[in-house]
Each structure stands twice: as C-alpha cells, then as structure tokens.
C-alpha cells in the first residue's frame, strides 16, 4: 500500500481547495522533466530537497515517490514552501495520501531558511508564478499569486534565482518552469554569470503557451556534466529563439 510502485503522485489522490493551484500542464511538464532525468537524480542522491511554491503538493509528492523507489525512506529530507497557507494544508493532505513526508513552511520563497540552509540544498524544484500580469497582482492573497508574475512574468522568478544560488550546495541542481515570455535565454545567461550551466530537459507547446523546464547546475560539477548531455546557455538560446515568433500575451491563460 501507500504508493509502493508509484512513480508520481496520483491525480485522484491530490487534494484540492478553491484557492490552491491545481496540477496543470506546467506541473506535469515539471514532473516529466524529473522523470526524464530520474537516472541522474538517483545517482545524484540528493540529501536535502526543496520545492518553492508547492501548491497542491503534486510535484513534491512525485519527487518523494520517485526518489523513494530506490533510496530507502528518510534518506532525503524534503522541504516545501508556499506563500499561500491553504496550499500547505493541501500539500500535507496530498503527501499523506501517498504515504510520503515533507516539512512544510509558510514562507516568501525561502524566508527564514536563507541563512542556515545556504549551500545545503542538493535539489531544488520550482514552478513559479510566471504569467505576465499587471504588477499589483503579484503576491496578492489567494489564487492569483499562483500565476501572477508581473512584467514579463519575471517578478517572482527574479527573486527566486538569487535565492536558489544562495541555497544550492556545490553539487546542487535546480529545475525550473519558464514560459517563452519570461525570456528563458536571458535567465540562462544570468545564471551563467553566476557559474551555472543549463539545459532544457522538457519543452512543451500548448495552444496558449510554450513551456520549458530548465535544469541548472554549477559548471564545475563534472559529474552532472558527464552524465547528462552537456548543453550550455548558448545552445539553450539557440533552441529558444526558434519559438520567439510565437510570443504573445499569456495573461489569464495559466
């Protein structure tokens, strides 16, 4: 029982609340990216894993299930934050329904963790609010904060990137969802200047949006460079520019 054999969270067991973001294309794409990279993840053996903005708990639950299949229980410490208190209750229910555990924190990105958790996170996953919206919708109470990203959808992302850089361990990996409108190639260059290599793990186009799941890791991390097809920011840019003509307004379509 309790999820033995499951690779990802089961939608019927994912809890919900009117003010909590339900698993959507972006959530599925992020979990697919983790699945696609699962062999590397299992070799990576992350000890401390953090999800920022856990929403329904679909992603952190899937991650815990995925890693648990090979790594015995309590071998990794999972933390999940959200700015929406309902999201944390829902995530708690989703985790429990699958028989896995994570520590939950009501926080702005990783507030309260920045000092002591600095340099300790081996794996970070984020499906941020990325939809371009008017600035005043960013961080508003309730469901709007789940997608409202302000100008170019970058308001929250641009605060997550330095936090990730601070929290990630020297062998840490970050998987993040972006939209073409977020200018992912610029995000990769920005992270490149902080010493990170990047690669698109999953790319997905729906009627309304082009999603990318980008993996970031420190350039000096030979292991991950060797075990995954190395693609630095340059190649990411190349593959992204082909999508630029399709850029349009994504407001409310998230």
């Amino acid at each position, binding site marked *: 029982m309790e999820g033995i054999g499951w690779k990802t969270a089961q939608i019927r067991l994912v809890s919900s609340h009117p003010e909590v973001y339900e698993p959507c294309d972006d959530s599925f794409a992020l979990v697919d990216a983790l699945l696609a990279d699962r062999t590397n993840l299992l070799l990576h053996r992350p000890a401390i894993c953090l999800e920022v903005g856990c929403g329904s708990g679909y992603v952190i639950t899937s991650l815990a299930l995925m890693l648990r299949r090979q790594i015995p229980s309590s071998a990794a410490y999972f933390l999940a934050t959200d700015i929406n*208190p309902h999201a944390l209750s829902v995530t708690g229910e989703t985790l429990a329904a699958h028989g896995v555990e994570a520590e939950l924190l009501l926080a702005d990105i990783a507030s*309260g963790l920045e000092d002591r958790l600095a340099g300790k996170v081996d794996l970070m996953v984020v499906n941020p609010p990325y939809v371009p919206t008017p600035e005043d919708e960013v961080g508003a109470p309730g469901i709007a904060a789940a997608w409202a990203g302000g100008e170019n959808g970058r308001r929250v992302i641009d605060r997550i990137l330095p936090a990730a850089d601070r929290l990630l361990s020297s062998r840490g990996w970050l998987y993040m969802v972006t939209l073409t409108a977020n200018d992912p190639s610029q995000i990769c260059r920005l992270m490149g200047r902080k010493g990170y290599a990047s690669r698109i793990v999953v790319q997905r186009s729906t009627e309304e949006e082009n999603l990318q799941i980008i993996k970031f890791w420190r350039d000096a991390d030979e292991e991950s460079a060797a075990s995954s097809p190395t693609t630095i920011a340059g190649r990411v840019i190349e593959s992204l520019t082909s999508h630029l003509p399709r850029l349009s307004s994504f407001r409310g379509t998230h």
Partner: protein
Amino acid sequence: MRLLTHNMLSSNIKGVVNGFPLRIEAEKVIHKEVDLNPDFLRNIFSKIEWRALSDAARSLGYAELPEEAEESMLDSDEFLGKFHHALLEIHLEEGALVCPETGRKFSVSKGIPNMLLHEDEV
C-alpha cells in the same frame, strides 16, 4: 515541524543580527517513529548546529543528547539512535518560534511554521 527544520530556521527580520536559534514555545509536541537511516544521519551531521539541536530537544523534554558532539560519535549506534530521535521524530505541532533578538513570535500551527514577515520587517 521537526527539529531538523528548526535547526535550519532563523529570524530574518530586518536589522536582526543574531536570529539563530529560534527559542521554542511548545503547546503541543508529538512523536512519530520513522526508520533510522545511518547514511542520512552521517551526511546531515556536519550541517547541524549541534548546540541548537541539543538545546531544542531539551526544551521539548528530551535531554538525552550531549551538549557537544563530534563526527567520531557517529560510530556509536546508541548515539545514532538518540540523534535520529531528536532530529526526525520529535515534532512541534502547535506553538511558536521566538526570535532571540526581538522576541517576535513566528507561530507554528498544525506543524507548519509561519515565516512570513510583516511589511515593516522586510
């Protein structure tokens, strides 16, 4: 909230210099058994502020941890068992985490600490 998480939290209120460790005010503490994983404990040991952990455990009624610890102690099963229990099995369900410098309380409800700051604290 486990004591492992307590060990990773500090008060980040603007102007606070020494926000760690947060003092615990406990209203409800529960214990949940989990499997002991020696590899995980060895791996996490170096990341723990030991004194904060042993003090926190003591404040919640578990006084079995020594005041100081070093790597070599991880060879002892007895020590591992106590470390495991303090770190992962004691949960603060209801109560508060108190900033050591300002006395500001971060509430803990249903095991979830509220680390959000008010506008004038950022």
